[in-house]
């Protein structure tokens, strides 16, 4: 009976977290952007890489831990601790400074970054469900233009909102003592909105608004594997991931409204591709406390199409490094000894080429994981500093700092408490 109550309570918590997540995802509040970068205009928006702990990219494909939901490589879920039910809720605040020529501008963005829960369903079989952003649009640019031949000016604003989200069902299986395999079933949904509005400067209610929306609801998947070579105290882990190119069903709506009258609208149905992805990782575990790993990711965006047209994107290469150190050897009493420390760095070529330049991102991060009392969970915080783009060729460079806070709650199932 008590166990039933407990699981009901867990279900309640899941529902609560899902509701919060959906509110954030569907929120139109402009403060809740993932980005303000003008580069989010390109492709499907700015890519929101989801890795463990830090949303922007630590190496992780070859990492596994009994208390961590490593959605990035579903094979890692097979290592989940029994008796644990993990809730995860993450938020990200980004503080960025855009620089172009002699101008700069600052933005603060905030959004949820992850909502997930997972558990070991059977020995050697872990399951997780997660909701994460996949791409994000957040540019908002206003320009005053002179109308050739007249004395009038117009105000043009270009605004991108929304983005794609992924609802992921992850399954990880231990096949042998050394080999685990996993599969992520992904439901992509979202609404990429691009609005262009023009109003005459100095009054006049006449406006011109062109809004185009890419509304998608589609499925894709990826598969992962981890193989562990064990030595005396140490082990070497090989991680791999593959995702086939899949066309996601989408609807594209374009509407032009002028002076309150719809001048044009067009709805187009078709597909856009998510790219073929290859990713490999090499990790090394020293004892139970230290892990060091390196990932390489290749996303073949150049082969993708959107509504049967070339996407004009380029292949993305990403290299990342990480190390995770659990200071707690099991007997720690001091606070700093109980923490988990993480360091990472990455170099990402991105998937866009603008004015003949690749828009690359590089950065590093560090973070700590603080256990909650009595093993009830973990708070992970990370600080990332990065740079995207460049100022040459009249392009924009974004220097940013990102704070990520992730709350992990462990619900111990199947344990009867002896004392209250």
């Amino acid at each position: 009976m008590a166990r039933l109550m407990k699981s009901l309570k867990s279900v309640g918590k899941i529902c609560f977290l899902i509701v919060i997540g959906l509110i954030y995802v569907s929120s139109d509040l402009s403060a809740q952007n993932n980005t303000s970068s003008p580069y989010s205009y390109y492709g499907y928006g700015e890519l929101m890489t989801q890795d463990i702990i830090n949303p922007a990219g630590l190496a992780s494909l070859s990492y596994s831990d009994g208390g961590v939901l490593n959605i990035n490589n579903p094979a890692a879920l097979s290592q989940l601790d029994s008796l644990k039910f993990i809730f995860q809720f993450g938020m990200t605040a980004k503080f960025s400074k855009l620089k172009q020529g002699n101008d700069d501008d600052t933005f603060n963005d905030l959004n949820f970054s992850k909502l997930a829960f997972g558990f070991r369903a059977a020995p050697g079989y872990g399951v997780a469900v997660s909701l994460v952003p996949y791409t994000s649009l957040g540019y908002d640019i206003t320009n005053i233009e002179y109308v050739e031949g007249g004395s009038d000016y117009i105000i043009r604003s270009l605004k991108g909102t929304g983005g794609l989200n992924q609802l992921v069902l992850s399954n990880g299986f231990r096949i042998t003592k050394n080999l685990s395999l996993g599969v992520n079933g992904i439901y992509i949904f979202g609404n990429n909105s691009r609005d262009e509005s023009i109003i005459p400067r100095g009054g006049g209610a006449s406006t011109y608004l062109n809004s185009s929306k890419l509304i998608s609801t589609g499925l894709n998947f990826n598969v992962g594997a981890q193989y562990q070579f064990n030595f005396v105290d140490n082990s070497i882990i090989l991680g791999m991931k593959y995702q086939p190119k899949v066309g996601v069903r989408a609807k594209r709506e374009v509407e032009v409204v002028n002076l309150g009258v719809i001048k044009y609208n067009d709805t187009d149905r078709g597909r856009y591709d998510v790219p073929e992805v290859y990713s490999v990782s090499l990790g090394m575990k020293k004892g139970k406390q230290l892990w060091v790993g390196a990932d390489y990711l290749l996303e073949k965006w150049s082969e993708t199409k959107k509504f049967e047209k070339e996407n004009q994107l380029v292949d993305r290469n990403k290299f990342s490094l990480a190390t995770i150190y659990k200071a707690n050897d099991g007997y720690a009493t001091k606070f700093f000894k109980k923490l988990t420390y993480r360091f990472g760095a990455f170099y990402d070529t991105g998937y866009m080429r603008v004015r003949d330049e690749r828009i690359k991102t590089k950065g590093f991060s560090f973070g700590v994981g603080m256990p909650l009392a009595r093993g009830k969970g973990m708070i992970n915080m990370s600080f990332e500093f990065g740079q995207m783009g460049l100022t040459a060729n009249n392009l924009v460079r974004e220097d940013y700092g990102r704070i990520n806070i992730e709350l992990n709650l462990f619900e111990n199932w199947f344990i009867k408490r002896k004392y209250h």
Partner: protein
Amino acid sequence: MRMRTNQVFLLLLTLSFFVGCNSNNFEEHQIGDNLIDESSEVVLIDSLTIKSSTVILDSVITSRFSNAILGRYQDEFLGDVKSEYYGVLDFKGGFPKPVKKVDNVSVKVPIRFDSLVFMAYPNKEYFGDTLKVQRLIINRLTENIKLPDNENFFYAHSKFDYNETPLLDTEFFLNPVKQSDFDDVIDSHGKNQEIDYYGEYYGKGIYIKMDDEEAISLGEEIVELVNAESDTVVEPKHWHKYIKGLVIRSGDNNSVMWKVPIGDNKVRLRLYYSETDYEEAGRQKFHDFPIVLAGTDESWTFTNYLSDRSSTPQQLDKLEEQKNDLESDETDNLTFIQGGVGLYTKINIPYIENLKTLGITGGVLRAELRMYPKNNSFDDELFPLPPAIDGQTNLLLYNTNEDNEFKSTLPGSNNTPLSFVLMKNYQNKNETYYTADLTSYVNNILVNGKEYEDAILIGFPLESVGNTYDRLIIEDDPSSDFRIRLKVTYVIQR
């Protein structure tokens, strides 16, 4: 432990609030504008063909305006315009035989006619040259002013017969500012105890003694009717039937048109008389007969305008019927607007819909109609531009059809009709122009298609055009910068 979980939630909430508040939501950001492709282009199009012409109204309503327009002006472009003002003459409550109490007995005292005087207090508005001497002629009507059956107004062409021999035919100088000075006490020769002029008139208004025999005999006739205690000078119906009315005319060499307020008895005949007996015998007294807007039996005051365009440089005598407009290329690329006579400028913009062929779609941001008054056709003294208050004129735009009939006014903001705004250029007078916002007009044509009735008549409000002498000559030379132009700021969607 539960406390700690809650604390974490609190931390997240605080963070979201903090960052949310700091976000620069309402600022305008420009960085990166060169990186984002604009899907549309904004252009200014002012080359749309505009056909222009001049239309003359068949019927200009001129009855029952609270200002009388009197006089004549001669215009370089529009020829001669002369007003004949038909006025209903009221007897101001009646003119009964005076009654005196003599030894507690009421006695009616006979009176003696002295003289008849024409009085008027103009308002300060006028059009033309006041330096020349002006002729003023007043005739008595020989038929009653009466609205014809099935008509609701008198028009600029309405007429009634009058006696050839005038009551007054005189010359005077118009000084509209000075002569507008009205003082109740002075006007009535000082009813007030302090001032007591019983002799001469000291006021500044127009005051002309009517010495013609016709006037003297009218005055004597009225005095006889008073002495005979006739109903004619007591009963309004009888009075109007008897007096019929006046027509105030001007000479062929007059050079100015001017306005006189009618509502408050500022134009009148004054009859001076004296009692023949008892203590006030011989003392000068008077009775006023003001011109009023309306008498009994649908007799209304109105203006007849005579326009002689036979010697105008653009031969505007070709303007005869409302349905036949005179195209501007027949009138030296000029069009005309004139109050009183009722000239309107008509424009037609046939190819607005061609904008739709640009891009996959598009929209109007602003459409402005501009027209320039002809250079040297106006000045600040004699022939000013139509009045504008803070630039706002009463030049309206009407939808019209092939027969040049008036449909609705083009709507402006706040449910008022759209009107032109004067953009005065003091440095460079010939760059002064009129502008009207045709944004919704153009948008309407783009959405619903063009119909013939989208042609536009431009001029003074139809209800009051009969009560204005203002005029405007508009330049529309297709090869010049000073042509009637529609400037459309248009978004082309690529």
